[in-house]
């Protein structure tokens, strides 16, 4: 029998998943598959769009089905083609690009679009949105928003639901003053009651987002672009960017045009077929099943499965019965779980409630006839898996209500997984249960990575990854077969760092090329070269053979490359202190070279940004400063506060100490950046608690040493390693810690991950109590490293390689 044609309209999360389910059931033998998608790429994870808005990911980073996936599975994809018409009589679909495709079975998965509520002035005459107004649905939307936000000061998000709040958070990340305007009296009114909405509002306002509830927007002000919003109550809010997250509308016009029954969306039966045409299936947000529409991926994926079983005839009785929605969400770092109703609706409903507004914790359960009919958990959602299970299965609840809300005497993880019912859903996005994960392990998957690839658990919003990993290791009795290469220092050389260091010493390998030659497998991975260079510098110090091609461009030209290929120059400024003369000189150099941007850095020094590579040596000579090492995986800088010199609170000479630190450690390479600070008292103005190494004066000459702190994308208070009796001792212990880190951390492993991997107890034992008897070695190694550093800006007069600073070389002879 020749193959049938399966045509899919809509290449989004439901459409692509449905095709995967078809392929998993041998669909490639049954069908020639043709897909149309209006967006010009393969399917991506829409749930992660906020990461594009925040700049954490680009489009590639959230792609789930790259173009190669379609090719490998023999699927013809018409990306960038919108299907305009279905000719049901001829069984043909026609795209706006003129492509015609005949079908035997058709699947519609056109999803939804952002709903733009009627507001005066929201659109221009030609019907397009007024410049500055955006929906929030696609990669293209996000790219435009990011672009526009760069030029905007005040951003308003209309809609205080999940999407709106996420978007408002991103607006602050993009540097805008961020407001949320919400029609209802409290935030997320679909998932939360008044009390929880109020607590969430407080938490969010603490993140510098202004929340306006009970506000109806009636007009978008401005003639050719957004200038503000006007509300029903007559008030106005000036702004230059408006993001609309006020709900979604299904793309069901295609059904209407083709004569299918459409109410709020295209109406389907339990097999996900259109009521009017059994050869047309509808899956996803554009489908209406038993009167309900779904806007979360979990139910859509269930629909996709039913469709696949039915269309491939692997189960002709496959039927979708609707989903009970229980969701676990993370809104701007606040963990939330919500299921069923938010307020009691029956006099006999029993409400169990707990509130701790100060910590943002709120728990409320609504029980009817001994069964859970609604629940809200906020802040602490430890009990969510159990409760969501009970809700979905309508299971009777234990009499002791307190235990529904709290883990009383937390049992060990082992017992928990033991007790976990097989049908407990672990990954909500992809609907993977404990049994599903167990089956994958039984079938031979022996690492969490393999289980995730097979079952897709953890591949949606990612919130459950940790739990999946723990469960897998429990299932394997703790014998998870790890991919051993994750421990290698660089991928192509099968050794961990300490082992590799011993081998390098034993064989006397002093250059990166010699390490590849003697220990590698013939393959030279470019990303491994800087990692090896860093290790060799730590091992060999002054004897290291510096092959410049092994180093990242920043370390070849001693400046920091910028997005447009220009460089930035940061002169050293110990403790953030300089003389008036020095300050004037920096200003003069900035003028002379027409520096596009002069910026004070977070590390208390001056950054000259946007310089041509060719100018670098001249600038260094004119500056007459030492290099600030702001470009490398190395000691960066040590911030300080005013300390005893002028501050009326000062307990220790934080400024002097910072300067002595900088003069000692400048130019010391390390596995990742080392950012330090000293504070003159525990008021901590220089933020020493959140540095890789921070020193805080506590009186009587004593200094507390904090290590492993961070306040970048990741925030962690440093661990108190030791309280030193004076500056000399503080310097010594700090130094030892840095050397221990240099010798043992993985490439690019910051101290905050290093500390969590090694543990404070062990680090303290080694560097304070000398439990391994290596302190003298650590101290000597650091002294030798310090002695071996040379100011790289001296290459201004003695370049190290040919055309080191030449941005463009003219061809010798143009023919």
């Amino acid at each position: 029998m020749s193959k049938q044609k399966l045509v899919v309209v809509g290449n989004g999360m439901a459409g692509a998943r449905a095709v995967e389910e078809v392929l998993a059931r041998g669909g490639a033998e049954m069908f020639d598959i043709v897909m149309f998608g209006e967006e010009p790429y393969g399917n991506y994870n829409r749930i992660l769009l906020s990461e594009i808005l925040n700049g954490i990911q680009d489009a590639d980073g959230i792609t789930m089905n790259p173009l190669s996936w379609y090719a490998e599975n023999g699927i013809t994809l018409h990306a960038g083609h919108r299907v305009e018409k279905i000719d049901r009589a001829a069984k043909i679909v026609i795209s706006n690009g003129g492509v015609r495709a005949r079908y035997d079975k058709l699947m519609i998965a056109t999803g939804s679009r952002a709903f733009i509520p009627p507001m005066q002035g929201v659109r221009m005459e030609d019907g397009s949105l007024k410049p500055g107004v955006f929906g929030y649905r696609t990669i293209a939307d996000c790219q435009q928003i990011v672009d526009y936000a760069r030029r905007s000061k005040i951003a308003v998000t209309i809609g205080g639901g999940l999407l709106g709040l996420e978007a408002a958070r991103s607006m602050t990340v993009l540097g805008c003053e961020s407001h949320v305007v919400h029609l209802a009296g409290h935030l997320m009114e679909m998932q939360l009651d008044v009390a929880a909405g109020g607590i969430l509002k407080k938490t969010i306002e603490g993140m510098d987002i202004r929340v306006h509830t009970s506000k109806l927007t009636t007009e978008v002000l401005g003639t050719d672009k957004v200038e503000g919003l006007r509300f029903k109550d007559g008030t106005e809010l000036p702004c230059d960017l408006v993001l609309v997250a006020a709900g979604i509308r299904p793309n069901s016009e295609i059904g209407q045009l083709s004569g299918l029954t459409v109410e709020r969306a295209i109406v389907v039966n339990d097999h996900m077929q259109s009521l009017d045409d059994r050869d047309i299936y509808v899956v996803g947000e554009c489908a209406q099943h038993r009167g309900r529409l779904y806007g979360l991926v979990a139910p859509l994926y269930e629909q996709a499965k039913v469709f696949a079983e039915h269309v491939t005839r692997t189960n002709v009785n496959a039927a979708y019965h609707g989903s009970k929605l229980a969701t676990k969400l993370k809104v701007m770092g606040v963990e939330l779980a919500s299921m069923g109703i938010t307020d009691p609706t029956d006099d006999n409903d029993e409400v169990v409630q707990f509130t701790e507004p100060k910590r943002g914790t709120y728990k409320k359960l609504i029980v009817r006839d001994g069964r859970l009919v609604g629940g809200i958990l906020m802040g602490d959602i430890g009990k969510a898996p159990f409760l969501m299970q009970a809700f979905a299965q309508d299971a009777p609840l234990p009499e002791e209500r307190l235990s529904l809300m709290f883990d009383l005497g937390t049992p060990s993880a082992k017992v928990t997984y033991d007790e976990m019912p097989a049908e407990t859903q672990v990954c909500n996005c992809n609907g993977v249960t404990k049994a599903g994960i167990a089956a994958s392990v039984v079938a031979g998957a022996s690492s969490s990575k393999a289980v995730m690839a097979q079952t897709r658990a953890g591949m949606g919003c990612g919130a459950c990854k940790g739990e999946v990993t723990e469960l897998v290791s429990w299932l394997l009795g703790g014998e998870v077969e790890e991919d051993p290469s994750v421990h290698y220092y660089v991928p192509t050389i099968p050794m961990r760092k300490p082992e590799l260091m011993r081998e390098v010493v034993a064989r006397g390998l002093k250059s990166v090329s010699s390490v590849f030659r003697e220990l590698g497998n013939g393959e030279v991975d470019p990303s491994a070269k800087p990692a090896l260079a860093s290790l060799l510098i730590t091992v060999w110090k002054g004897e290291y053979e510096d092959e410049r091609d092994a180093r990242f461009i920043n370390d070849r030209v001693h400046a920091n490359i910028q997005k447009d290929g220009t460089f930035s120059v940061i002169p050293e400024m110990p403790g953030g202190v300089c003389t008036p003369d020095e300050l004037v000189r920096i200003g003069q150099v900035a003028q002379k070279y027409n520096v596009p941007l002069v910026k004070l850095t977070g590390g208390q020094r001056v950054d000259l940004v946007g310089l041509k590579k060719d100018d670098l040596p001249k600038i260094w000579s004119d500056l007459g400063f030492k290099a600030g090492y702001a470009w490398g995986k190395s000691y960066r800088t040590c911030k300080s506060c005013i300390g005893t010199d002028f501050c009326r609170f000062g307990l220790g000479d934080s400024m002097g100490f910072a300067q002595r630190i900088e003069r000692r450690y400048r130019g010391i390479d390390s596995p990742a950046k080392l950012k330090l600070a000293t504070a003159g008292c525990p008021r901590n103005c220089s933020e020493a608690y959140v540095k890789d190494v921070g020193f805080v004066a506590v009186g009587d000459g004593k200094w507390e040493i904090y290590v492993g702190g961070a306040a970048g994308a990741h925030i962690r208070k440093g661990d108190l390693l030791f309280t030193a009796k004076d500056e000399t001792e503080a310097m010594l212990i700090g130094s030892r810690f840095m050397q221990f880190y240099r010798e043992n951390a993985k490439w690019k492993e910051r101290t905050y991950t290093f500390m969590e991997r090694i543990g404070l107890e062990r680090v303290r034992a080694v560097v304070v109590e000398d439990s391994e008897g290596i302190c003298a070695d650590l101290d000597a190694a650091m002294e030798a490293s310090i002695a071996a550093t040379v100011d790289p800006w001296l290459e201004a007069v003695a370049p190290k390689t040919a055309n080191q600073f030449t941005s463009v070389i003219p061809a010798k002879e143009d023919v």
Partner: protein
Amino acid sequence: MMASTEVLLGFIDQIPVGEGRTFRVADLEIAVFHTAEGAVYATQAFCPHRQGPLADGLLGGTTLMCPLHDRTFDLRSGCGTSHEQLGLATYPTRVSDGEIWLHPVPSPAREAAE
């Protein structure tokens, strides 16, 4: 139109071993690489991702890694190796008597098959 005869870029030792440099031929900028194995390759000067300066990238064998966001390419074909939909235009080169000659007509950027 660019002349289709070969152009003399200059001595090979203008490019340190294992690194790249950008050359200008008439109005055109071209990234030229001198691999550790001694071979010379030429590609478009700027990364198709976000215009990173490719000559500032890192080389391993014939693999080039862009300095801005770590996309990798095979210098021999121009094909993207980390992101197959990205590709580079390459230019034929040869070395004789220590001098690099380049044919300034690119073989087109490799793109993913539609």
